[in-house]
Structures are given as C-alpha cells and as structure tokens.
C-alpha cells in the first residue's frame, strides 16, 4: 500500500517535472518573465522594485511576480507599486541548536521551498532577482534545486546592499549566476560578482540649493551652515537623544549653523520619538536657551522630500544603512556616521568604514550603557557637538569630503543591473575593484595580540602601537564595549579584558559599576560556589583593567576600597596589587593602610596576604606599617614572609624607614626555612648564554626545535 503511494507520488512528480521542463523550454515566449523576491524590511523591498522598474523601462512587456512573506513590508509596498504578489513561508535563521525555534525554522523553510517550487513551475521565470532578507531564502533554494535537476532554465541574480554580505547571500552566492554588489569592498566574498551600486527609484536627485530653499516649509536664516541629523524613517533613539544633548554645546555657535532634525515616526510603547525628543529638549536646555532654540534648530518627524534637505545641508549626521549612504553619495554630501551596533556582521560599522576609507565620512561609535538596570545605546552630546563643530569649521575638508562622497558609490545602479541581467556588457569600466578591507581581527585574537604586547612592553604599553589604524582601534573599543552587555559572562569577561587593553577609558564608570554590582547569581550557581551576576573573574579582570588603563580618581578609589572586601579572594589579591600599582598616590593614606593591614592577617588566603604585604611596602609611611610587616616573621607560608621582607625593603628604598641595628635584629627573627627552592641547571644556562651570544654575533636564527632539544637533553643523559 505504502509502496503504491510512494510509487504514484514519484510518478506524478516525474510527470510534473517533465511538463515543467517543457514549459520552461517553450520557444520564443512573447514576454520576459521575472520573479522578484526579498523583503522583511523596506531596505530589501525598495531595491527590488527599483530593479523591476529598470527592467520594465527596457522591455515594457515584461511580466513580474513578487514572492514575499505575509504581514511584512512587502505586503504594503509591493501592492502599492502594482505588482502581482504571492506569499510563501519563511523565517529568520535562528542559529542551529536543538530547540523548538530551529525545528520551526526548518519546517517553515521546507514548506516555503515546496511552495516556491509550485509557484516557480507555474510561472516559469527567466530571471530571478533577489535582494536578500530571509524572505528570498526558500525561493532561491527552490530555484537552485530546480536548476540542478535540470528542470528550470532560470538565471539567479542576488543583490547585496551592504558591505558585509547577509547570511543568505553569503550562503547562496555560490549558486547564483551573478551577485550584484553595492560596495566594491565586498568583491572578495564572491567569485561571480559585479559592483553595480544601490538601486533606488528615481526620487533622489540633487536639487540646486536656491530652489530647495524656496520650496522649504520653514525658513532658514541666510549664511548658516546646515546640519541635517536623522535616523531613518522610524528614527534612531541614540541620534535623537545625542543631537538634543549636543544643543547646549552648539548654542554658542548658533549664528553660524542651523540644525534640521528628522526625529522619525516611531511611536511605539517602548519609544515615542517625537514625545521623547520634546521632553529631552525641555530637560537639557535652560529656559534661556530654549527661547532661542527656534533660531538654529528645526525638528520634524519625517521629511517627505528628503532630497531637498540633503541638497541644502553642509553636513549630514545619520546611521550607516546602505540605503542612506547611497542617497547621500548620490547627492554628494559629507557625512558623520553613527553606525548601529550589535547588528549581524556589524554591517553598519562595515559600511561606515568603507565610506570613511573613501574619505567621505567620519565615524562616531555609540556606547552601550546600563541605565535603570536596562541596556541602552548612548552617544555623548558633547562628543557629537565637538565633532560637528570641528567639521563645520574646516571648510576645505568638507568640500573634499563632499567630492569623495559623490565618487563613493556607483551611480546608474539600475542601468548597470539591467545590463548585467541582460548580459549586454554595456558598462565596460570593470567592476571597480578596490583593495578589500584590511581584515579586522576577532576578539580572541585581538586579546592575544594586546596581552602579548602588554606583557612585552609593560609600562610603555600602548594599544595604538599594536592596532595601527586609529579608526580600527575606535571600532575595537566600541566592539569591546558592546560585549559588556552580553548575557553570558564569558563574553562580558572578554569585553572587560579588551576594554582594559585597548585603554577605553570612557568605559571606566561602567566597569566600576560592574565591579560593585551585587546582583546575585542564579540559585544553582550559588549552590556550587558562585556569588554574583558579575562573576569573580569579571571582577578580578576589572581591577586589572583599571591598572592597565592607569587612571586613578576618586571614583576608582571608592570602588577599589570596596573591591578590597570582595568575597572572592582573587579580587582581593588583585585589589592589593592595584594598591601597589597606584602606590605613589595612596602613600600615607591612613584608611588604605588600615585596610591593607587587615588583609595581612588573611591566613585563609595567603595570596591576599602576600599582595597586601607588598602593597604595604609601597604605601606605608609610619612605624605601624613596618611593625605589622615585621610581625609576619613566623607566618606559615614562606611566600608571605618573603613578601613581608620585600615590603620592608621597599620601605627602606622609599626612604620612609631608617635602616638601623634595631631593624636588623628585628628581621633576624624571620623564619628563613622554605618549602620551595629554585633549581638551576648549569647546562641549560650555559646553552642559553651560548645561544644568546651566537645569535648576537651571527644575527642568524638557529633555533630549530631539534637543535635546542637535543643539546639540552643529550647533555642530561650523559
């Protein structure tokens, strides 16, 4: 019975395939047929529609079918544009894990592929143009499947809007006939690719400034430099808040500049752009400033004719989404970019870097901070204001940036795409290959590089010497700061280490907050010896990060004092080390000395006692300190006794303790027996010395593993 069903299904499928294959081979069909796909957000749908318009302009008879997902942006936009629309199932890739989500994803994808096969065989397109987003996943997979089976004769084109390919495009790029790119830097990802630019419908064209000014619904005084800040159609909270925060700092220059602020349409429960901005203005500005506000600031939720505003602006402040960058490049304006963090592949950061490399943009990174227990992206208003003023005042640079901006992305993107699809080779100026990005290193590798450098150069350590490009360093810092808000502590721990080693001093307040954070860990963890949400390693590493960053102020002092009483011994030991490190600034402070002396008696954890004794040597100034160290003469651990002696030695070196006969008789009471010793192997020392001098003489590396090994050990056997 089952066999019969299987057999009949197979037969049916084979017959269907045959029919479909014949349909595809239909000779000389009158009209070209194109399937468009891609969506989820407007950023994917609009390029697809722009390409459709381009194809239509060339061959008006072309038939289009848009395949999308229900209840998404394409439902509205495509319908409006008047294209036929079909829906399939699909879902965002949740990452492979054994969970319900993954199962649902796989099921939906499979269903979507089957639906797509049905739709494709019915429509028999010649071309499929997909613009990314998970929506197009099943369509492309179905098309690739049909192609491999020899049923469909269809060409697949993918368009990638960002400088770092999305997951789907990265995966399917191999099977596509051509991948069409916006950024030349992306070429290294795909073998069959062409740089075409970003297709948009013909709404954005530069308008002469005079004309634009005339058409404005509000007035701008003559002779002002215009700054346009916006965060996309929905608005960006970071940008909105930062620009408002920057107003007091820009106030002094109000007769030179004018700020146009597009705050966005967002009005959800989480964030209401207009309301939040109004409230913030009332909060940040003094009444006097507020009364002059309309002289140099204009806010509106959304500008319908954005090209007009672009054309007027001297500087644009915005997110680095591919769409915005393309529009700006087309108008040719200098731009200050604030990339959105924590996006897949950090593609906004990559876009921004591409534009920065081209000389058309400056970048500011937003921070992730903790506010009211929640995490929040944040950009300091003063930093933004300073950056804006610096740019505005440097007119030649602005002009240069504008030029570079104009040359940044390819114009005629649609024409190029249509030409690529028709394969008529109309554009022969190559694919604009530029050097790909210098690879950014992953966090783990960065940590290794930095900590090696730190171990090598000690006090003279400077992250800028390890990471040469200041932009890269800024990005690494920003990435490290992003790690602090992760859920699992291993990531946060990595972030702490990286912040220390990249000397990201702006994050010191966050680190201090984490250091003293006493949110308890989960019950199970506590049962096994865990204590707080910010686990022991994190707290320990925060203290050592503070040492690397080398900034010591009242806040740091306050939190270090707390860390001295931390329940975890490594934090206490590290805090004592920090005291020794910052010794000169703490010397003579009674409170600190008392705290250290308490820890001297920490027999339970000798590590703390050792570090405390050393630290006493650094900060102790009075006889009390010396006496305490001398009283360690019969301590159980030889390391503690040793550290006490070191401390006394240090006090003499610092000149706070007078060498005297009494002191000699005091230190002679120390127990000098030890359970440890340091063996020395003469042959190894001789070998090392010989090797050093022969390296010095010859300057030749003779350090093959074999040579080193056989010399040492052969000697030992004899």
């Amino acid at each position, binding site marked *: 019975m089952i066999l019969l069903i299987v057999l009949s299904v197979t037969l049916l499928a084979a017959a269907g395939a045959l029919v479909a294959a014949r349909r595809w081979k239909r000779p000389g069909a009158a009209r070209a047929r194109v399937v468009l796909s891609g969506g989820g957000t407007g950023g994917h749908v609009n390029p697809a529609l722009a390409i459709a318009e381009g194809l239509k302009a060339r061959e008006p008879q072309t038939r289009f079918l848009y395949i999308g997902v229900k209840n998404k942006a394409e439902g509205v936009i495509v319908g409006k544009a008047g294209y036929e629309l079909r829906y399939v199932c699909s879902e965002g890739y949740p990452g492979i894990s054994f969970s319900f989500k993954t199962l649902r994803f796989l099921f939906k994808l499979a269903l979507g592929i089957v639906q797509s096969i049905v739709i494709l065989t019915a429509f028999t397109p010649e071309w499929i143009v997909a613009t990314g987003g998970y929506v197009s996943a099943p369509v492309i997979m179905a098309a690739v499947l049909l192609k491999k089976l020899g049923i469909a004769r269809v060409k697949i084109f993918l368009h990638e809007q960002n400088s770092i390919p999305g997951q789907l495009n990265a995966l399917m790029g191999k099977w596509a006939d051509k991948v069409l790119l916006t950024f030349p830097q992306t070429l290294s990802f795909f073998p069959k690719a062409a740089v075409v630019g970003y297709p948009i419908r013909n709404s954005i064209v530069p308008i002469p400034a005079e004309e634009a000014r005339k058409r404005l619904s509000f007035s701008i005084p003559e002779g002002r430099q215009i700054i346009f800040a916006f965060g996309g159609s929905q608005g960006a909270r970071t940008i909105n808040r930062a620009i408002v925060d920057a107003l007091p700092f820009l106030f002094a220059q109000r007769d030179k500049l004018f700020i146009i602020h597009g705050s966005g349409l967002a009005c959800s429960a989480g964030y209401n752009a207009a309301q939040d901005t109004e409230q913030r203005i009332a909060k940040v500005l003094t009444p006097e400033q507020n009364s002059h506000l309309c002289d140099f600031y204009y806010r509106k939720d959304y500008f319908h004719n954005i090209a007009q505003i672009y054309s007027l602006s001297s500087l644009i402040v915005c997110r680095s989404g591919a769409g915005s960058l393309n529009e700006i490049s087309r108008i040719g304006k200098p731009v200050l970019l604030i990339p959105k963090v924590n996006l897949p592949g950090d593609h906004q950061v990559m876009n921004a870097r591409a534009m920065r490399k081209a000389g058309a943009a400056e970048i500011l990174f937003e921070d992730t901070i903790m506010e009211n227990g929640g995490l929040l992206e944040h950009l300091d208003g003063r930093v933004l204001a300073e950056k804006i003023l610096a740019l505005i005042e440097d007119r030649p640079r602005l002009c240069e940036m504008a030029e570079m901006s104009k040359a940044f992305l390819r114009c005629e993107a649609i024409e190029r795409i249509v030409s690529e699809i028709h394969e008529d080779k109309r554009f022969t100026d190559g694919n604009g290959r530029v050097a790909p990005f210098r690879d950014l290193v992953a966090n783990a590798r960065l940590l290794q590089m930095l900590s090696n450098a730190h171990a090598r150069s000690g006090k003279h350590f400077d992250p800028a010497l390890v990471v040469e490009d200041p932009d890269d360093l800024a990005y690494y810092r920003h990435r490290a700061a992003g790690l602090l808000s992760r859920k699992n*502590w*291993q990531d946060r*721990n990595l972030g702490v280490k990286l912040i220390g080693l990249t000397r990201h001093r702006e994050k010191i307040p966050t680190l201090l907050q984490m250091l003293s954070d006493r949110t308890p*860990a989960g019950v199970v*963890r506590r049962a*096994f*010896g*865990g*204590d707080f949400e910010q*686990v*022991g*390693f*994190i707290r320990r590493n925060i203290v050592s990060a503070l040492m690397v960053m080398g900034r010591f102020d009242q806040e740091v002092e306050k939190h270090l004092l707390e860390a001295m009483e931390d329940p*975890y011994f*490594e934090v206490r030991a590290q805090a004592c080390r920090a005291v020794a490190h910052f010794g000169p600034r703490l010397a003579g402070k009674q409170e600190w000395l008392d705290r250290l002396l308490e820890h001297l008696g920490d027999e339970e954890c*000798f*590590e703390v006692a050792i570090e405390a004794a050393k630290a006493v040597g650094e900060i102790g100034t009075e006889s009390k300190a010396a006496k305490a160290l001398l009283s360690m003469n019969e301590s159980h*651990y*030889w*390391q503690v006794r040793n550290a006490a002696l070191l401390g006394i030695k240090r006090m003499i070196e610092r000149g706070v303790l007078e060498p005297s006969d009494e002191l000699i008789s005091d230190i002679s009471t120390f127990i000098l027996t*030890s*359970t*440890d*010793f*340091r*063996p*020395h*192997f003469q042959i*190894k020392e001789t070998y090392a010395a010989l090797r050093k001098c022969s390296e010095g003489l010859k300057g030749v590396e003779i350090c093959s*593993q*074999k040579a*080193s*090994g*056989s010399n*040492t*050990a*052969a000697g*030992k*056997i004899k």
Partner: protein
Amino acid sequence: MIYELCKFLASYSESFSYFRLVNYITFRAIMSALTAVIFIFIFSRRFILFVHSHCFLDQVRETGVASVFDKRGTPTMGGVLIIGAVLVSMALWGDWRNPFLLCSVAGMVWFGLLGLWDDISKVRQKSGDRGLSERAKLLLQGLFGLVFAWVCVGRCAPLGCALATKVYIPFCKFPLADIGPLLYGAFIFVFVVFVSNAVNITDGLDGLAITPSIFVAAVLGVFAYVEGNRIYSAYLHYAFLRGSGELMIFGAAFVGAGLGFLWYNAYPAQIFMGDTGSLAIGGTMAVMSVLLKQEFLFPLLGGLFIAEALSSQIQDKIGVKWIGRRIFYRAPLHHNLQHKGIAETKVVIRLWIVAGILALISLATLKLR
C-alpha cells in the same frame, strides 16, 4: 614462552621435573618483575636517544603555575618502554590462555596506542594543548569501555556469570547487591573512562604518576593472588576466581616496569611517560580492579588519582567554565600544592606517602571485613 616451554619439558620427561617451578605463581611473579626491570635497564638509554633523534620531545603546556624552570624538550613517550617491558615479561612468563591476562593486556595496549597517537599528534602540531581532541579521546576510551563492559557482563565473562554483576564494597564481607548487567555494564564503562583519565591528569610532575601506580599494581596483585587461591580465598571469605592468579604475575611485571621507569623518571626527569604511559597505566588499573571485583576499593586504593581528577574537573568544569571563579588556587591537586609554595620534589614525595598510606589501608581490607 618460558612458561609454556617449562611446562612442556616438565611433562615430557621426569628429568626436567624441577621445571614444575613455573606452576608456582609467586615464582613466576618474581621472575616477571625482574624481567621487566632488566628490560627497561637495557633498553631505556637507547630508547631515550631514539626519541631524541626523532624529536619526540615534550611540548609546553600552560599550567598556570609559575614554572620554576623550563621542562620543554624532555623526551616523552616513555610509556612505550613500560608497555614494552610488561609485554615482553608477560610473553615470557604469562599464560596466554588466561582470560584475565588477555583482558588486562588488551586494555593496556588499547590505551597505550591511544596515548601514543595523542603524543605523536602533539609533537606534530608543536603544542601541548592540541593533540587528539578531547572528544576523540573520550570516544576511543569509551569504545574500549563499552566492549570491556560487554565482555564483563556477557556470557563469556572471565568472572563467571553468577559473580559478574554483583557489587562488592570494601570492609564488607558479602556482596551488597546484584545490580543487573545493564547498570553494571554502564558502571564499568564510566569507571574505565574515568580512571584512565585520572592517571593522565596525575601525570604532571616528575615521578608523580608512576610510584602510586606501582603501589596500586602491587596491592591489586596481592588481591589477585588471594582471590585466585582456593584456600586463601576461602579463609578470607572472598569469592574464588579461578585463574585470577595470573593477574598477580601481570601486576608484578607492572611493578617491575614501574620501578625501572622511575629510575629515569625521578626528579629531574630524563624521560616522561607521556599520554602513552599514563593512559595505558590508567586503563590497566581500571581493567584489573574490575576483573578482581575491587572496583569499589579503587577510590580508596587509587584515592590520589581520584582526587587529582576530581580537583581538575571541578576547577575546570564548574569553576572556570561555569560559575566564573577559581574554586582551588590551582588545579589539579599537585599544581595547587606547588602554588602554595611547596617544591616539586616535596610535593611528589608527599603524595607518594599519601598513596602509600592509602595502599596500606586498602591491603588491610583483606582481613578487615
């Protein structure tokens, strides 16, 4: 070989009757121990030079203890010597028809080869941390554990079906329970994997793993002798295991090989046993104690190994990877002691003393039941 030859000669002619000496297990045990020691004394220097010229040298590994001196470049894979000595001595003095012996030798060789693979790949990749991946290692150990568990509870169990799944615990005369083949098989599987890794972890300081292993092998040898002897086993109320006496010879060979190895491995070491040695020793000890029904004695007898393994696992899996703090200063146990400022030699000798005391207590369980 000698065993077979002597037996043949003794049965062949009356004039060779003194060759019946080989029927005495104690005699063969002493001879096998001597053979193993002599084997090591003869071959070790050549072996060390061989390892040198082929660059099988120990690779650096991050231990977290401020290293007193650089041990890099010490020849490794000394386990090959130990295994070789035991095999040769068993070839000469063992009865190869004995299932106890076969199981033990199989365990030793399997784990030895596994360790050898690991050692070689470590040398190839020039790093002490890479090598065979942890997962692959566990898989191969588990494979042996599974097969061995199946043999132990199966129809051709060397112990006999009646006894195979009974649980004996130290200080207790009668079996505690019969937990059935499935549960018991699972236990054997876990036990074998755990013990072999425990010795691997213990092998971190010069001479630290080998001496406690000698103690364990010696005590297990005594147990083998008692349980394989009808009179003694009846007297001490042990189940009589026919043929288990052969394990005494095996244990003696092990003791001999261990002593010979310690000659070179004592601080400062001229050769390390490497994973080859530690896994082989661990595997052998696990198999022997299961075969002698002393698997529940092992936590006492090999308490040092257990403590080392547990401290290392607790520190790594619970502390460092999960709750994000150190639970011990350092792990495993011997590094903790070093970190507290005890010299390597002193740590090693102290742990030997601990292992010796544990072995004595374990011996006492022969009568204290």
